[in-house]
């Protein structure tokens, strides 16, 4: 069943199109990822889907309900972790969740149980009565995910859920997120500009300047940029290259004293290579295409390039400015 369905969605701010005729579907229970550089339009699409923005044209449906016209049905069906924290730092973790439970009319008989379960699920039960102000970035993120699940939504939106976390907490959060579809029967829609993170998705759409420029499973996308590349160092490159050409009919060339071979199934190719010319091989390594290569091929630029220098530094400066001022 299609849980999210978007048809020719367009959003203009003034005459700038932040989102331009975007269409896609997400199956129930899938992890769907939006991959794109800063300013690509990811958050704008999420804001339309979660009924905060009205589209300029086009349609968006969640669970069969029109995001623009049937707002309250859509709101009941979704949970969201926004790009910027939306917790009340002057309340405790438990109070934040309680607020949410009342807001979503969670029945009194299950309210406390659900909140306790959610806190345990994200490993914050021991800190339940601490002010959110005292939490680390990773703890806040986990708390937001827990909050988003309290009312048992059908779809969970995660807008750059790992933003500002260290690699260790990012990995932990991902491990946790990938368990959600099974544990909570929820469809996940996430955005990121980290290539590695997009790999966990069942399906990805790559978006740039408000347009989807490619979509498919991670492996499908990677196939579009060709197969694996095997790099060999040998004690006689000339002879090795000739042997490989004769024996395998593969495309071989040399660069910087290293032979490289493009092939569809690198993993199966290496043992055969070693069997035939193993004597002369000094080292071997293989590179699989990454989503970064996909993005590079589609747009001619690296996804990180677009980010602009020190972008994250600026965001963290703004954050600390805010946290200094949010008491007065």
């Amino acid at each position, binding site marked *: 069943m299609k849980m999210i369905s978007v048809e020719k969605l367009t959003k203009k701010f003034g005459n700038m199109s932040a989102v331009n005729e975007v269409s896609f579907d997400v199956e129930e229970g899938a992890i769907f990822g939006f991959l794109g550089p800063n300013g690509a339009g990811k958050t704008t699409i999420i804001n339309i889907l*979660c*009924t*905060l*923005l*009205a589209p300029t044209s086009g349609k968006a449906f969640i669970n069969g309900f029109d995001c623009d016209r049937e707002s*309250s*049905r859509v*709101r*009941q069906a*979704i949970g*969201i972790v*926004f790009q*910027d*924290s*939306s*917790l*009340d*730092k*002057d*309340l405790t973790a438990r*109070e934040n969740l*309680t*607020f*949410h439970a*009342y*807001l*979503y*009319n969670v029945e009194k008989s299950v309210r406390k149980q659900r909140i306790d379960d959610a806190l345990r699920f994200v490993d914050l039960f021991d800190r339940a009565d601490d002010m959110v102000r005292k939490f680390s970035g990773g703890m806040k993120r986990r708390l937001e995910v827990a909050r988003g699940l309290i009312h048992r939504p059908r779809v969970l939106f995660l807008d750059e859920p790992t933003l500002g976390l260290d690699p260790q907490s990012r990995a932990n959060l991902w491990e946790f997120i990938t368990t959600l579809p099974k544990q909570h029967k929820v469809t996940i829609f996430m955005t990121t500009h980290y290539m590695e993170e997009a790999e966990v998705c069942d399906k990805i759409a790559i978006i740039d300047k408000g347009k989807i420029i490619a979509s498919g499973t991670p492996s499908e996308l990677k196939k579009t940029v060709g197969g694996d590349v095997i790099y060999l160092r040998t004690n006689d490159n000339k002879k090795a290259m000739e042997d490989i050409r004769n024996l395998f009919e593969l495309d071989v060339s040399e660069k910087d004293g290293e032979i490289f071979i493009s092939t569809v199934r690198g993993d199966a190719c290496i043992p055969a290579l070693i069997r035939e010319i193993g004597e002369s091989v000094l080292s071997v390594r293989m590179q699989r295409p990454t989503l970064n290569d996909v993005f590079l091929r589609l747009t001619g630029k690296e996804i990180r390039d677009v980010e602009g220098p020190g972008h994250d530094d600026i965001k963290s400066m703004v954050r600390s400015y*805010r946290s200094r*001022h*949010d008491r007065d």
Partner: protein
Amino acid sequence: MIETNAIYVIVAREFKKFIRERSRLVSTLARPILWLFLIGGGMSRLVPAGGNVSYIQFIFPGIIGMTVLFSSIFSSISIIWDKEFGFMKEILVAPVSRFSVVVGKAISGMVISTIQAVIVLCLFPVIGLRLDVMQVVGVVLISAALSFTLASFGILLASFYESYESFSVIMNFIVMPMFFLSGAMYPVKLLPDALKAVSKLNPLTYGVDALKNILFPYETGRMAADFSLSVDILIIVIASVFFVLIAGKLFERKQ
């Protein structure tokens, strides 16, 4: 559509934060108390009493009005903070009507302001007033109605602003003039015609006037109320309905 659970939890959140921030309570109470004793006490030497009412007693209803005005507006302006720090999004994506959100915020302002008004009211013996129980109940009820109205007005203002830089603009250009043109410090009937006209558009005027009606029921001279109690109450009620409905509509806007 009114969602009682949502309204309850919005009020509970504000109340909890109010109780926790004792320093804010002290600072919002300091202003009216200083005004009462420093300005009221000083001016009493200059302004002769009218009838049985001294100047410090005359401004007492105005000082209660001031307490209600500042704390209601301040409470509503917290919406701007909520927008700035993202919490507003949590409320706006919930399956709750905008109208309930506005009512919840207005009731929050009402509860917090009424508590403060009651604290200021407790000073009445110090300035030589004698009140019976009905008068005390009347002051509390008027304070509650007035703070609901002013809190809704504050929400209306807050829906036009996105960041807290606008806070001082609101305070200096809207709240302070509202206070001075409310009959709090001097009777509306003594104002020049132009200012009198503005005063009559100010909802606070009727709140302060209602309090004067209750506190000085038998006064007829300069220091007496300007309108009748029933006119005051009628206008406060109409204004609150008007502001809540408009604020609800403004909240409904999507970009």
